[in-house]
């Protein structure tokens, strides 16, 4: 186990003093975020859910993750690999992470810059949610868009009226990010 992470009571007094002087428990908060994210990652690794995956970015900053959702079967997105970014605020999990689709996606609740309209990422956020639950929610959102509050009105309309045309749009918009890398 990593004991150095939360070592406040045994650290050198100087460092503690500076912490005390410079802006409250900034460090402690970051620490607890890191700890929480590490635990979430561990959980994801220990019990992976099918079709979703997430991992911190390679720069070693645990506050930024990349996630991958494989399009669920029997949806227009079947077989597609969709990438997302997670940006965790310093007071996570008390505020939701910022989640964006990186892969261009045609979806009623996602706009063209990848922003997502999902209640649990906004006002319905709760600290009990985690990366895994967010990803599972997004996965289900792909199959059951919330057409009551669309970001992409055309897509919402098309979803209701013409599924085949919708799927065509989805495929034409989709581009695999892997090729760019």
């Amino acid at each position, binding site marked *: 186990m990593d*004991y150095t992470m939360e070592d406040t009571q*045994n650290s050198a007094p100087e460092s*503690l003093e500076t912490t005390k002087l410079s802006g409250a428990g900034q460090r402690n908060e970051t620490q607890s975020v890191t700890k929480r994210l590490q635990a979430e990652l561990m959980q994801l690794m220990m019990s992976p859910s099918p079709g979703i995956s997430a991992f911190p970015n390679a720069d070693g900053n645990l506050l930024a993750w990349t996630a991958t959702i494989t399009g669920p079967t029997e949806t227009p997105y079947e077989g597609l690999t969709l990438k997302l970014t997670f940006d965790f605020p310093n007071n996570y999990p008390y505020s939701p992470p910022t989640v964006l689709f990186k892969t261009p996606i045609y979806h009623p609740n996602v706009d063209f810059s990848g922003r997502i309209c999902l209640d649990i990422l906004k006002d319905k956020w709760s600290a009990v949610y985690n990366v895994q639950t967010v990803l599972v929610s997004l996965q289900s959102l792909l199959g059951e868009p919330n057409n009551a509050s669309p970001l992409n009105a055309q897509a919402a309309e098309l979803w209701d009226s013409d599924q085949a045309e919708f799927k065509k749009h989805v495929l034409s918009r989709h581009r695999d990010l892997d090729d760019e890398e």
Partner: protein
Amino acid sequence: MINSNPLNVGRRRVFGSVFSPAPFEARSSGRGVDNGNTQAASPFHPDASFSTIRTGSFNSPQPGKSFSSTLDRETWNQAWCLASDFLSLPHAGFAEIYNARGRVENKGKASRWHRPPSQEVAEALSYLACSESSETSSELNGLHELLLWYGGEIRRHFLANMRQGLHELFRREDHEELIRSIVECLQLARRMYLTPVANHVLKFAEAEYREKLMAQLQRVFHTVVSYSLPWSKISPLISVVLAKEALIILGIDTLLNEGDMDANDRDDDAMEVDRRYSVFYDHWRNESPEGRERMMIEGEDNHVTTARERLLMFLQGLQQVGLGGDKTQKVFASVMNIMMTEFIRAAYTGKWEAPSLVPQHLRHWVEDVFARLAVQVLAIIHHPRMADKSTNILNVSFSDVEKWQEMGIARLGTLRTSELFDVIVEWPASTGAIEDLRHFTTYPAARSYLTHNFITVLNQRLLQPGASTLEILQLYIAIIRAFNLMDPKGVILDRIARPIRRYLRDRDDTIKVIVSGLLAEPTSTPNRSALPSTHDTLAELPTELSKAHQLSMENNMSELDWDDMNWMPDPVDAAPDFSKSKGTDVIDSVVSLFDSKETFVKELQTMLSDRLLQNRDNYDQEISVLELLKIRFGESTLQACEVMLRDISDSRRVDASIRRDQGLVKLPTRPRPKRSAHASFPDLHAKILSRFFWPIIPEQEFKIPDEIAALQERYAAGFEALKASRKLTWLNGLGQVLVELKLADREFSAHVTTWQATVIYAFQSDSSSSSSSASEESNTTTERSISSLAEQLSMTPSLVRSACLFWVSKRILAESSSSSDTYHVLESLPTEEEEHSSTTHHAGQQAGQSAGTSTSTGPQDNTTLTTSAADAAAAAEAAAAAAAKESADAAAMEKMNLYWQFIMGMLTNQGAMPLQRIVMMLKIVVPGGFPFSNEELREFLAGMVAKGKVEIVSGGNYKLVH
């Protein structure tokens, strides 16, 4: 001669003083010219002018009258000439003075310089004394002027003659004799210069001026001495002499020669004399209080007294020749400064006994010895201007002495600080040193000095890879105890403990050592068989555990006790997050090394499981430790351990009842299993563990003999009948078997592990089918190869090999000569070896089952067989270690699966990555770090490539295959 500017100036001054009256006279009369000429020619070799002067008679002019006539002036000139001639100093001189030094008073030589004044000279002197100065403006009379001139003469003579010689002295000798001879020379010179004046001239002066005139000349002498002798050269010489004598007077030399002294004491009867006067701390300690008071005052040793006299004489000389004064005081001060350090070092190093009287002894020494010398010395070398005022006043006030005592205590603190590490190592025999430090650490600077210093030493000597974790912990405990005594507030400890704690946290085996220490028995009992000996565990911990518990009960409330009149705030140097409770209790400090109790409890569980699984009669020690820990940690934290203990005690009961129900008990008393006898079955006992609460126990899987398996089934059935809805899972790798082997010529029985028993059973079972009686008696040797055994028992080959080697070391099996890795039962020992090896085995059986013991306790024999047995034992151990490593490796591979999940997540989301990047990321994100090297990971990934899970794309990047 040095041709420097100041000298030229000086010379000009000298000449000026000699010739000053001459031009004045020359203008007034012919005689004056004459007179002036003689002076100009040679003031030192008087000739014709003598006769002229001698013919004249001096009519003492009335004081107050002015020179009105040339006659008066002439007479005055004559008198001046006569007097100055009398006083003028012969040219050469230093060599004589140098040779004359050392002879007592050396009257003969000195008298050559001191001609008694002739009648004329006396008259001239008295004339001058009465006459006015030739310089009308001056208020001084002629005598004063003469002496002014004489001052110049001294200067001139000294520079011309003495200076050269003295400088040569510096070149010739460079030891401490040098300064003595210099001082003696200067003393002689001073006498030479001043005696004529004192004896013959001064009596003509008015009484009130005499002293002043003398002092004036003296000052001239002092000035010229200090001018011509560079102080930078003199002061080291003085300090050498001072140091040498002070060493003796202050008693430091005896301390340094302690060893020799003791040897001498035993030889002669001087013991009693020594006893009376001694600066030895040990002697002083043993003395009665009244004796202590007197010890350093009375009965001074002879050599001390002489040294003191010698020193005082020397200083007297220095003072006389003008080398005393504040400069020498400074030298003296620096010497005394060194002396104090020296004394403290010599007297108290390694004197750590409790109760410590060192501070008292030191105070006494400062007051009685140190200050006494200072007073005596300072009375002699005082500042010249202070001379008349303070002759009767002590130069050393009592507050000075007190200051010195404080300095002494501070020095003692420095000494103790430098010794502190060794003091701690010696703890608790060194309590006295800690008491000394308590006197020292009264102000923040001292405390920070101590902590800073000690931490440096710790980093050098303790917190490094060379020290075992056990040593560090033992020392840490000693530090806690020692610093508790020194500073009950615990602030210093708090500071010092930080680096230790930080370091200990980085050590892998810290928890293990602590936990095994906690579980160790406070009194090591010899009959413990299965655990490593206790002397290398932290055996203090259990004692501390019970002791500290009582303490914490007592002063639990101290911080909240509002009526505590002795309450003190934390010292200023306390760290902001300082809290007393944390540092002072040994168990707390040790346990709180880790910020989560979980780690500790987990290790405790592992350790506990190891111990509980041993076959022992009672587990009182574990129970009591657990009870005490429960008070500390709370019931809930240690619940798992609690369950483990209950499992063990429950299983005993359950075991008994199952065995009764299943008819596994053959005799009312505990039967001894007889494997060789047919139709009987081995005794099977089981410990029933609640899997959920026990740590994961690494296990070797193998097939146990059918006989045992059958018993297990019956047992399991019995258990399920007793405890419905529960099932037994057998952990075959754990446990012990009492094996009795009957061979053709000997019997063997020992407690061995299950897998060892299984392997040896495999050798038997085959032959048992061929003979109806005890299997081992058949002479048909069965041969088994390791691979066939491994297959038959579904055991890893390395484990089989380890077991075989174990039996080889017991001389039950032997490796076949035909092929390696094949073994057969050694049915009968080679005859000449028979007796010897049976004793060997007997001894081995008693001492325990370690293979190493059995061979080493047996009589050593040079036969090849014994050696091979020893080799086999070593090989068995090595093989066991290898087997253990193999299982550890397997566990590591198990963990690798987890890492594989991480790698998959990484490659899925971040795209293809090179190996280094993967390793780096794993190190960041895997809790507890990633234990494998790049190479190991490359190997692992290569396996995954082979399985088609990943591929290597351009640039050595790994990419998941979708």
